[in-house]
């Protein structure tokens, strides 16, 4: 299987030169995206087969380090993530067949798109630290090239710059983590790392480095700064891949190191991961609420969902450390199921945002509105995505968050008072973030699709093409299927949890009415199908009743305008006015948000103004000082560029003497 997967990756890599060769032709975009679609579908099938056959297959290539070679392996975890990567890749390729034809500079996107897909596959397949890091960096660089594809906009260049810096930081942390794991023998194969049992202090250092390295790519707070800049800057199908898939590859990196390579966890690791997850979830959604840019809002929601995933992973670490494998399996299943769900609905939402962007040329929600009449199908699938990400039953987002809560409810059994205090607090953060996410998506959907168009661009929008719609309908259907048949997905994750925590959740598919019972019937159960049937039935009955009783009495007349004729669309509820209550409650402390009202004196002709000031405290506290220091140091060191020859010689001479002195004094 691993060999076939490598063939698939090679096929994707081969598409890049073809894309370069075809760049001039108008059909290039179709050729590349159709080919990517086929290859990713094949790779996805390989992933499915490896997951269900429960086999581990390996392949070795004579590349990389001479004494090591490049090892690749598909086990249950890798197979699951191969499915995620290629499901997202296939959907994005299908979407791009339509979307890509509007691309203004296809030669900047087409060669990097298949290499990016190939790189993400390689990260998941890699079975030694060297191949892993090379693929990881390859993934970062190819996605960077896609972020700066539209390089004429200053903002994109800045996004690319910040992204590149943060990606280097992450890779550095991972490099150190693997270096510590490999030990002084330099044994970089994952097999050798699994076999070695690192000392507790070393293992803890590796965990922190992995959290920083993989977390900076996944977007945990406070390493998220690049994410809301870079994800929206790329073309929309690539944004979907970055948000929906690449962050999951980063989660894979963390899971691989923390659960697989490091062996038995210490109990306090989970406290770190849980705290990071909880803060990330709430901060992500609060940032999102302050945003009016549709794609940036979605990117901040990625931060939030990564927080939810890390909460699941942290709980799994806690249960594993205390020898409670069934509970650990539940928490890990919840986290991984959310990985799948988020990759589906986040891709769907980014496709929707891309369709809107294509139809109107606008990303700012304050310039949109009323699109449900112009783009009814896009509006429908976007609504499905919104319901899913807001964790409303019967869609998939609810199931994985509900499973996470079930794991949180098991936490009183943990024999550590630190965790028994922390976990409920994290549960409260999770609940808060779920509620705020729902509010945020009411805003996103309502302001973008409902009401009246705020600009001519929104008024003249047209429905998007059929390929893009097909991709979105496919993902929306997947949201529904995963929501009403979660048992199938939970059972499919059993080999993964078996391999990582030693147990799996009870078998779900045989139960009556497709119920999901995570622990015991007496404790809790969820039946997505019944909820779906109930929602559908009650909705249909209500619709039928309203139609029967009220439709013929409907008449359309002018809305009451308070005596002002010709209401402007600007008088509608706006995104920032929708977010105002939440901004007042949370934003005053978290963002030091201030509203400054300027009321001109009577008789003055200047307009009244209401300005909202928001500070990104994390940027101000963590990033700005570092940037300022580097700028200052560079300014100081600049003198070194313009010394005289003799001074350069003196520098060389003193460096030499200094080193000799060190050599002389060193014991």
């Amino acid at each position, binding site marked *: 299987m691993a060999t076939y997967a490598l063939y698939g990756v090679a096929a994707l890599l081969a598409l890049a030169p073809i894309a370069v060769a075809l760049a001039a032709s108008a059909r290039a975009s179709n050729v590349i995206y159709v080919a990517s679609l086929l290859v990713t579908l094949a790779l996805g099938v390989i992933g499915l087969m490896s997951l269900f056959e429960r086999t581990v297959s390996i392949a070795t290539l004579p590349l990389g380090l001479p004494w090591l070679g490049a090892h690749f392996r598909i086990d249950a975890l890798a197979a699951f993530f191969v499915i995620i990567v290629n499901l997202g890749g296939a959907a994005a390729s299908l979407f791009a067949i339509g979307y890509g034809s509007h691309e203004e500079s296809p030669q900047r996107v087409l060669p990097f798109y298949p290499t990016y897909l190939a790189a993400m596959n390689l990260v998941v397949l890699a079975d030694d630290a060297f191949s892993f890091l090379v693929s990881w960096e390859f993934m970062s660089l190819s996605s960077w090239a896609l972020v700066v594809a539209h390089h004429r906009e200053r903002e994109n260049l800045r996004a690319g710059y910040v992204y590149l810096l943060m990606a280097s930081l992450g890779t550095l942390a991972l490099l150190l983590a693997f270096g510590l794991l490999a030990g002084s023998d330099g044994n970089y194969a994952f097999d050798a790392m699994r076999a070695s049992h690192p000392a507790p202090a070393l293992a803890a250092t590796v965990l922190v480095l992995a959290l920083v390295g993989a977390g900076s790519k996944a977007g945990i707070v406070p390493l998220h700064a690049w994410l809301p800049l870079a994800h929206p800057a790329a073309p929309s199908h690539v944004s979907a891949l970055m948000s929906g898939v690449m962050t999951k590859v980063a989660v894979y990196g963390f899971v691989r190191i923390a659960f697989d390579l490091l062996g038995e966890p210490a109990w306090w690791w989970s406290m770190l991961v849980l705290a990071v997850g909880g803060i990330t979830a709430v901060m992500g959604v609060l940032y999102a609420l302050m945003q009016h840019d549709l794609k940036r809002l979605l990117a901040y929601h990625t931060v939030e969902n990564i927080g939810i995933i890390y909460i699941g992973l942290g709980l799994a670490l806690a249960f594993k450390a205390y020898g409670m494998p069934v509970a650990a399996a539940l928490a890990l299943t919840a986290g991984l199921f959310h990985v799948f769900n988020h990759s589906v609905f986040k891709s769907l939402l980014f496709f929707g945002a891309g369709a809107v962007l294509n139809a109107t040329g606008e990303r700012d929600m304050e310039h949109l509105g009323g699109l449900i009449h112009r783009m009814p199908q896009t509006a429908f699938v976007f609504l499905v995505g919104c319901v899913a990400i807001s964790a409303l039953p019967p869609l998939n987002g609810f199931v994985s968050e509900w499973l996470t809560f079930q794991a949180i409810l098991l936490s009183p059994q943990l024999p550590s008072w630190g965790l028994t205090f922390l976990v409920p607090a994290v549960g409260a953060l999770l609940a808060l973030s779920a509620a705020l996410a729902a509010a945020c998506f009411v805003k996103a959907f309502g302001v973008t699709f409902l009401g009246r168009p705020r600009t001519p661009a929104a008024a003249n929008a047209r429905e998007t093409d059929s390929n893009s719609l097909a991709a979105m309908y496919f993902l929306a259907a997947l949201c529904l299927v995963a929501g009403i048949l979660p048992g199938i997905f939970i059972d499919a994750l059993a080999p993964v949890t078996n391999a990582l925590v030693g147990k799996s959740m009870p078998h779900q598919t045989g139960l009556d009415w497709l119920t999901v019972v995570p622990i015991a019937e007496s404790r809790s159960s969820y039946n997505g199908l019944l909820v779906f049937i109930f929602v559908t039935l009650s909705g249909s009955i209500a619709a039928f009743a309203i139609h029967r009783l009220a439709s013929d009495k409907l008449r359309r007349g002018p809305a009451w305008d308070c005596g002002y004729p010709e209401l402007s669309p600007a008088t509608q509820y706006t995104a920032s006015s929708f977010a105002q209550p939440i901004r007042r409650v949370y934003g005053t402390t978290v963002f030091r948000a201030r509203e400054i009202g300027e009321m001109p004196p009577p008789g003055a002709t200047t307009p009244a103004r209401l300005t909202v000031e928001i500070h990104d405290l994390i940027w101000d506290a963590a990033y700005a000082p570092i940037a300022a220091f580097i700028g200052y140091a560079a300014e100081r060191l600049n003198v070194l560029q*313009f010394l*005289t*020859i*003799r001074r350069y*010689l*003196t520098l*060389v*001479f003193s460096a*030499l*003497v200094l080193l*000799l*002195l060190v*050599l*002389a004094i060193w014991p």
Partner: protein
Amino acid sequence: MRGLSFDVAHLLAGSLVLVSFMQLYQDRLYALLNIYALHALVLAASVAWQAFIQDAPHLYLTALIALVFKAIVIPTALHRIIVRLGIHREIETVVGVGPAMLLGMGLVALSMVVMLRVTAEADPLAREDLAFALAVVLLGLLMMVTRRNAVSQVVGFMSLENGLVLAATGAKGMPLVVEISVAFSVLIAFIVIGIFLFRIRERFDTVDVQALDRFRGERR
């Protein structure tokens, strides 16, 4: 024989360091060139002695190269350059002679400490030789750093290279190819620097490298 050969090698290498100090002390160009010739002469003698005690005939060739090129050709050429440039004035040094000598002594002490420590197991002859060679290299560098005149910087560079040759011949089994290539690279460097000297002089009417700095609008 063992004792005598060691003593003579030691004496010659030590004299090379001493001559380096004399160079550091000199602040007139003609005298500096003469002492450089002496430096090369001592080097040639030292290499020849090494050839004798190591029974390595190719080292005689190295000694010959040192004698012909470094003790005769290069000083003569530099002498003619100085005459043609008309600069036989005093050399301005950045650091005074006294501090320079003190610095030089510190460097010699440093190179002794370093070399004797890191080569504890080596052959005593090679150890002493390497320590002296490092001292000569450092003194050459010091000379390049403390002089402002381009010609004396060239001399500093040449004496630095002499230190390298001393180190190379002190270690047994250094192939001739290496020495010849070092000699050639020095020759080429000498030619290039000579050409540069004339170019600098043509443009600025001086070979004081401060003129270059002034030209770039730098303060000293």
